[in-house]
Structure formats: structure tokens, C-alpha cells
């Protein structure tokens, strides 16, 4: 059974600072997803990481995947207030099952 752990669970950071959210998973996962969720809203897809060493960047967010370490990171560069949200990583177990297993989420607050 795939288990996904994120840390930290809560993150307050000042505008302009950099930080990294970590996502560890327990068994083989053939792809790793990052989602953003604003309070009471839907989940917005940010990145899909398919292979070892994959790196994707969009604006101030960069995600990477190390399948050997079973670790994905979401790096935030020069944070701005608009990035305040909850960020979830999710894995999909290898094999036929297609559902996602989510981490607990990281609630990010960017302070002015």
C-alpha cells in the first residue's frame, strides 16, 4: 500500500524567501503529482513528474523527483503572497490501480 508523507505540514515564510516542501513515498510509484488547493476550492494541478530526475518549473515553483530516494520536492523561489495555499503531493501506485494517494498537505502562508 502506497503511503505518502509531506513535510512540513505548516509553513510560514516571508515574501522574497526561498523554501522547499518535501514529499516521501513508501513504495514504488510510477508518477508523482503536485496540486495546489485554496481554502474551500478545488485541486489545481501543478506538476506531473514521470521519471527519475524529472524537473519541472512554472514561475516561482519548481518540482523534482528522485525515484531511488522515493522523494519529490517542491521548491519555492522568492515567495509572494499569491502563493499562499495548501500544496499536496500525490502518488499513483505502480500497477493497474489508477487512484491517487495524497500526502497530508503543506499549508503555506506567505507573509508580507
Amino acid at each position, binding site marked *: 500500500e502506497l503511503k505518502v508523507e509531506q513535510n512540513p505540514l505548516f509553513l510560514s515564510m516571508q515574501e522574497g524567501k526561498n523554501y522547499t516542501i518535501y514529499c516521501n513515498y513508501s513504495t514504488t510509484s510510477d*508518477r508523482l503529482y503536485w496540486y495546489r488547493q485554496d481554502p474551500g476550492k478545488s485541486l489545481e494541478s501543478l506538476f506531473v513528474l514521470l521519471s527519475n530526475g524529472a524537473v519541472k518549473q512554472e514561475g516561482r515553483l519548481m518540482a523534482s523527483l528522485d525515484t531511488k530516494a522515493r522523494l519529490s520536492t517542491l521548491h519555492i523561489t522568492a515567495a509572494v503572497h499569491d502563493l499562499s495555499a495548501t500544496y499536496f503531493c500525490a502518488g499513483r501506485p505502480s500497477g493497474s490501480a489508477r487512484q*491517487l494517494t*495524497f500526502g497530508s498537505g503543506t499549508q503555506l502562508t506567505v507573509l508580507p
Partner: protein
Amino acid sequence: AAGVIQSPRHLIKEKRETATLKCYPIPRHDTVYWYQQGPGQDPQFLISFYEKMQSDKGSIPDRFSAQQFSDYHSELNMSSLELGDSALYFCASSPQKLAGAHYEQYFGPGTRLTVT
């Protein structure tokens, strides 16, 4: 671009009542997933359908059932509602057959169910 449609967006029910949530996937998406998200929690997988057949089952209570219809829309039927069923219910869809598809799941806006 078309997105996943869910209805209703908000629903208030009393304990022991029944509720039906509807999901209309993105056109040409053949797989539908249902997730439940309690307050302050991560989404938990309930059930999924591929080409109108149930494909995977998660932590869905026996009081809940779901199906996918010939037009690919899906309905989640919930009976004997309990206070603990209050949550956001998301439907997601993905294209399994499209070339280059990465099984990316696109989430709908959710239905907020409140059981009183």
C-alpha cells in the same frame, strides 16, 4: 477549455437522509474518480470507473454506491447519512486512452455536503 462539472455545489441534508452527487467528466475522458475530503484533511479515494465499469475501490462505506452511465457521467449515491459524512466530495476525470496521457487527474469544483 471544458472542465469537470459537479452538481450540486452545496448540499445540506439531515442524518439518515439520502443524497446523490453528480459528476460530468471532461469530454473524451473515460475514467472518473471520487474523492472525499474532510475538514483540514487530504482527499481520500472512494471509487473509480473506467469505461463505465468499476475499476478500483477505496475507503467507500457500504452505505455509498456509485455508477458511471453510458454518457460517462457518474453519480455517487449516499444513504443513511451520518454527521461524519460532512465533507467536500470531489470528482476527477482523466483520459486513459489518449496518446501521451499521463493519467493526470483533473478535479471538479467539488460538492460541499453538510449533514445536520
